[in-house]
């Protein structure tokens, strides 16, 4: 071809500009997290204190990681769902189902069977959601609302509404309360899941397809992307993440509380995704951003406890912080600065 290629700018590719640290998309979520930690550390002396106790790292920071683990798992799944322009409000119900199934089976069938069955149940939930959204074409919020309402009922049905306490086997508690090399097992679970997911997104075309479906489903179909299969996949993945989160929670409190486990976890997960910079109308996503978002939420909660904020004020404090973080992330600041 002979068409003259006109070079536009003297500066090499625009990626150079994005490489400046403060223009990195993760910069602002990270800054928000750091600021929160700094505020907590200043107002509560010893908030960042870490020590080794019984061979474990002990301190608020470990707690934050530990407590944020279920939310991080849920947020990872929610990230992908949101990237396809969907939403999954059944996450909390799936947490309840998986935790309950595990606790029901733990004593009688052993931990392996219990955990397997719990994840199996979560898988079924995901298949159901996927079927409704991708197969039947229901709007995601309604499709998952069905499971959100009925799922908790199913979990309660399994336990007759009781809180089921697990006394043994002790290995049941390892997942949610055990420690390896001084860090909680849940930390490794999240790292593993996040790592695998990142690998899946990087080393296969899944990430590309998910974004494509989220940004322009019509064009995606015409380009030959299996849109329905992709949508199906993200709901299954999200459910599995929620199922794992349910295992962490019930293993941690050694019981299944069908009515309260993971209550409103879906909202927190969505919040985590948005705090991490994700767009709810689909498209570009950042797994790391969502994880940071989850950490922001948990740090906020922990800081509120540590500061001794009275419970009736907690909500207002949370709201103010969320507003502040969001506004600080607004794109209008960068637009101003670039001028």
């Amino acid at each position, binding site marked *: *071809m*002979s*068409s*003259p*290629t*006109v070079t*536009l*700018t003297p*500066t*090499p*590719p*625009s*990626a*150079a*500009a994005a490489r400046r640290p403060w223009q990195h998309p993760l910069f602002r979520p990270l800054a928000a997290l750091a600021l929160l930690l700094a505020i907590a550390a200043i107002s509560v002396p010893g908030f960042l204190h870490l020590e080794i106790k019984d061979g474990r790292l002990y301190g608020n920071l470990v707690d934050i990681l530990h407590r944020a683990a279920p939310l991080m798992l849920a947020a990872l799944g929610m990230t992908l769902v949101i990237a396809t322009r969907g939403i999954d409000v059944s996450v909390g119900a799936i947490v309840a189902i998986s935790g309950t199934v595990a606790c029901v089976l733990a004593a009688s069938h052993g931990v392996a069977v219990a955990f397997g069955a719990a994840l199996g149940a979560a898988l079924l939930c995901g298949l159901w959601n996927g079927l409704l959204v991708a197969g039947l074409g229901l709007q995601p919020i309604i499709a998952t609302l069905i499971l959100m309402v009925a799922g908790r009922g199913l979990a309660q049905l399994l336990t007759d509404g009781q809180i089921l306490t697990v006394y043994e086997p002790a290995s049941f508690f390892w997942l949610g309360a055990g420690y390896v090399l001084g860090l909680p097992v849940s930390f490794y679970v999240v790292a593993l899941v996040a790592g695998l997911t990142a690998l899946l997104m990087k*080393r*296969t*075309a*899944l990430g*590309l*397809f998910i*974004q*494509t479906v989220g*940004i*322009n489903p*019509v*064009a*995606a*179909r*015409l*380009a*030959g*992307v*299996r849109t329905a299969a992709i949508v199906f996949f993200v709901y299954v993945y999200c459910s599995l993440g929620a199922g794992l989160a349910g295992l962490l929670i019930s293993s941690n409190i050694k019981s299944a509380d069908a009515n309260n486990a993971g209550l409103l976890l879906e909202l927190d997960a969505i919040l985590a995704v948005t705090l991490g910079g994700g767009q709810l109308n689909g*498209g*570009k996503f950042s797994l790391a951003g969502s994880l940071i978002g989850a950490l922001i939420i948990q740090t906020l909660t922990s800081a509120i406890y540590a500061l001794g904020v009275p419970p009736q004020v907690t909500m207002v404090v949370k709201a103010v912080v969320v507003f502040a973080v969001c506004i600080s992330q607004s794109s209008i600041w960068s637009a101003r600065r*670039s*001028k």
Partner: protein
Amino acid sequence: MTTTTHPVLELAGIHKSFPGVKALSDVSLRLFPGEVHALMGQNGAGKSTLIKVLTGLYQPDAGTITLDGQAIQPKRTEDAQAHGIRTVYQEVNLCPNLSVAENICAGRFPRKWGRIDWAAVNADAERVLKQMDLDIDVTAPLSRYSLSVQQMVAIARALRISARVLILDEPTSSLDDAAVQRLFTVLKRLRDQGLAILFVTHFLDQTYAISDRITVMRNGETEGEYLAADLGRLALVNKMVGAPPDQQPTRLDSRASAGGDTFMTVEGLARRGALQPLDLTLRRGEVLGLAGLLGSGRTEAARLLFGADAADAGHITLQGRARRWQSPRDAIAAGIAFCSEDRKHEGAILDLSVRENILLALQARTGLRLCMSHEQQQALADDYIRKLGIKTASADTPIGQLSGGNQQKALLARWLATQPAVLILDEPTRGIDVRAKEDLMDQVRALAHAEDGQAGMAVVFISSELPEVLHCSDRVLVMRDRRAAGEYRRGELDERSVLEVIAAEPAPQAATA
């Protein structure tokens, strides 16, 4: 109002940059009342950006906009409208969910007793569309109509309210000749009433047919302002390209290829309300052109060939085997590629990079396994960017930041990358500049007529520009009223005889659907 020596609108020293891209630098432009002013330039020269700055969609980094001697600073499109500037932007920017009439009247509804007077709305819309000879159901949602109709609606919206300045950014890119003529009639009338009209197009014929004055832009700068009468075509092209005068690129090979073996045959392909039964043969090494007017069913035929819509009836035979498409995937797997006319809604994945957009179809065919390493992807993308002359800061730039014509080229690259056996191009020349268009047509013919003796692709070429179709195709299928009206070999037809076929007595059942 008669000709005055004062420009109604004057832009001076306009600068605008995006992160990493300097789109406009020191651009100036003058618009006089009662003139049609053509804004010319290659893809990515900055025409659309200039228009967006002028209408308040973008804020300039520097520069002044003067309307009637008064400096204005439109912050929003509303402001520009309030100043009497009406604009049709490059892509169709209307709301697909609203009715045609609403799209035309939104913002200024006729009212009665404090409520919208729907009867007046519809009547108004019909009236403006009538000016352009378009008789459609204005109460139907806009999304029901093809892109070309939508483009007419967008123009109608701008024409409805009398204004001081009318700006049209590539309004004719998917209109057929007849529609363009009707539009020009209207524009001429408005010009004679003293309106200042700014007009962007890549069609030189149209430029000379209507404009009085031409401003040429190159690389985000004003190259110069000329009287249309003083500037020859060749000079114009050279000013746009910025190259010294060279020979007209008439490299087009005129071999009337007999075509290779039959690759795909279609019998009785039909879809209710869209296409009457259609028979078609595609041969390797041959370009089949589809000619016809607005709504003649070319797009529908292409979509059915590709499985984008489900056919009600008909058989597809591919290399002797009967096939059915459940979805475009099946067609792609069989080696068919389809480049849609509606790049905004059916083509570009706006937030993704040029590289990802180019690779998408190839990757989708490969499945989840990466089709190539990151370096190979980069190399492939860079290769097409160079070959097709896509003007982009880098392969990592989001495709949404490219100019319209460059997006179109990137989408073409997407399908070329799959190395299809059948390439269906629906209005591929839409919005690309003169030089690129010629290059594209060369490329299309080269794809079909492979040099090394092997049969190339079977190409289906759809364009509303009759000369392009005739120029490019080995065989032309003329369509009318959603059915084939005749098939001709290269050389059997000239422009006039095709027009005669098209304009033959209207089929009685045309008005259905």
